[in-house]
């Protein structure tokens, strides 16, 4: 499969997004550093860098995780979603500063390779309070690196949307590791209840928003499914089970139906070719037409008509896609009737 690489396509709102993002990052860094130097002037430069980058990345990670559910709960949050990948990459770069400085500070210039030292210096894996928390942060950073490195659309197309989305769901694993990293690391030293409170509120906010968004989504899905049932639709199969430019045949309510997936669309026609009753569901989409595997007879998927000058016509069926499942109304339309195809959501 050929994949064309395109540079970042800037537009005004993306630029504005990044300006605001880096103003927030700069604001956190400036405020945190200034307060440290005023209230704790004994702080070393290394500690200041490690703590500033940790706090900044931690705040941004929470923001990143809250944007998704917020945008699903209220579309007014959508502008935050638009350039979220820049937010993610920025967060990773700041987390990388934290990780690199910490490894240099605590593990370099010693008798063991610094990376080996991260994994071997503290062997208290059996203890929670003494757990080697740096390993958790290290693994989280690796996950965030994979996500940042594959954040461009080039990788979305190259890896396929399914693999890409699966990889990027790793942010939740990374978040869990970061929470554990902070709880078993910094908060074992900076153990004031305020610190635990901030960690708890942050985690609770992320979790609660996801739960609410999920409840709302379930309500919408339930309503869609109820409407579909009332309109006579029947759930038949997963979209993913249909090969791209191919079909799956189903037999429901005495109807033999071929469901085709093509150009990000789904259409359904009667599964029997008008020529010699060949199984159209075993055919493919060729030049935009359903093509019978037996003798290559062709039909337009949306209306079941053979391309002119041919005159064969198939029954067509109404289709819907709800939550990744194909629903079909098994009542056949008159042969050659145009039916709006179901459009698949872009991943």
């Amino acid at each position: 499969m050929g994949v064309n690489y395109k540079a970042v396509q800037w537009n005004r709102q993306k630029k504005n997004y990044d300006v605001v993002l880096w103003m927030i990052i700069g604001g956190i860094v400036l405020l945190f550093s200034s307060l440290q130097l005023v209230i704790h002037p004994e702080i070393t430069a290394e500690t200041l860098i490690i703590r500033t980058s940790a706090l900044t990345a931690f705040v941004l990670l929470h923001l990143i995780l809250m944007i998704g559910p917020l945008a699903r709960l209220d579309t007014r949050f959508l502008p935050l979603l638009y350039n979220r990948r820049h937010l993610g990459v920025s967060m990773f770069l700041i987390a990388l500063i934290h990780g690199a400085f910490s490894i240099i500070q605590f593990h370099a210039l010693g008798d063991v390779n610094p990376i080996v030292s991260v994994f071997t210096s503290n062997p208290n894996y059996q203890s929670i309070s003494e757990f080697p928390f740096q390993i958790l942060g290290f693994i989280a950073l690796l996950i965030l690196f994979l996500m940042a490195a594959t954040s461009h659309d080039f990788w979305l197309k190259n890896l396929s949307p399914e693999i890409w989305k699966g990889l990027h769901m790793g942010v939740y694993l990374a978040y869990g590791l970061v929470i554990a990293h902070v709880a078993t690391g910094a908060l074992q030293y900076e153990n004031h209840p305020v610190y635990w409170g901030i960690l708890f509120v942050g985690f609770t906010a992320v979790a609660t928003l996801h739960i609410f968004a999920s409840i709302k989504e379930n309500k919408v899905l339930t309503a869609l499914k109820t409407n579909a049932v009332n309109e006579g639709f029947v759930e038949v199969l997963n979209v993913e089970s249909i090969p791209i430019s191919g079909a799956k045949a189903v037999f429901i309510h005495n109807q033999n139906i071929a469901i085709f997936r093509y150009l990000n669309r789904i259409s359904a026609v009667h599964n029997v070719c008008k020529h010699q009753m060949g199984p159209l569901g075993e055919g493919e989409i060729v030049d935009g037409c359903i093509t019978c595997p037996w003798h290559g007879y062709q039909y337009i998927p949306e209306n079941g008509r053979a391309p002119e000058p041919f005159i064969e016509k198939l029954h067509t069926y109404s289709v819907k896609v709800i939550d990744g499942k194909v629903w079909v109304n098994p009542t056949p339309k008159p042969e050659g009737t145009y039916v709006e195809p179901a459009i698949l959501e872009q991943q």
Partner: protein
Amino acid sequence: MSSDNFYVGWQDDMPPSTKKFIKKLLLFIGLITVSIVVLIVVFQKPFNNHVFEFGNTTELTGVYIAKPYPMLQLTHNSAALNSESVLLVGFGKFGAESIMQDIENEEGSLDLNEITLAGTLIYGDGVALLELTNKAQSYVSRSGNFRQPLVIDKNSELITLTGEILDPKCYFGVMKPGEGKIHKSCAIRCLSGGIPPVFRVQDDNANTFRYYLLSGKDGAYINQELLPLVGQVVTLQGIPYSHLDWTLLEIDPKLNTLISGKNE
């Protein structure tokens, strides 16, 4: 929401109502973030006032004491230091023994001789260390004076103390904080590299500390045995004795008791 308010990212501008909402939202995010930053800094543990004179080289003259840990018994006052002796440590996370060995390979035995060394000072809470930053090139000269071996009185009884095993290089100035869980891995690396282990014990009902240099029987090197106990609260039994202005605690690592669940 009407279609007039539908947000499209690639358009030049967002709908006015969305823009108004986003402005309020950014203000809210800003206020929350400022609150978090202020709370974190205000409720942070204070750092100690220990000093690492990074970038400054100081020459110190004193009698070199090789065992159990390399030290200088100062014979000339140093303006910055308020101690009789200076513990020697190497560059990075290493002790000074191998550096002093390299110097002695060139200069002959230096034990109990008055010498001058150049390095980076580390000091705080009445304790001083000198990092031999330039490794073997830290040696400057010897005066020709020397002293008799130290008289060690070990008549003390076994005592039991509770505190934290630290690496003195980080704790007395190089890192802040140089103690507790977040510094544990670094302290392990430092002790593993030969930096003398120090046991910090908090005085009862006071925010002051006593420091003990730890060794095995007759000054035996026990750093590796202590590694699992670093950076947490432990109870140790040992025999204390005076060594210059330090108290050494001779311990048997097998006798130590680990009290878990609390970090300093």
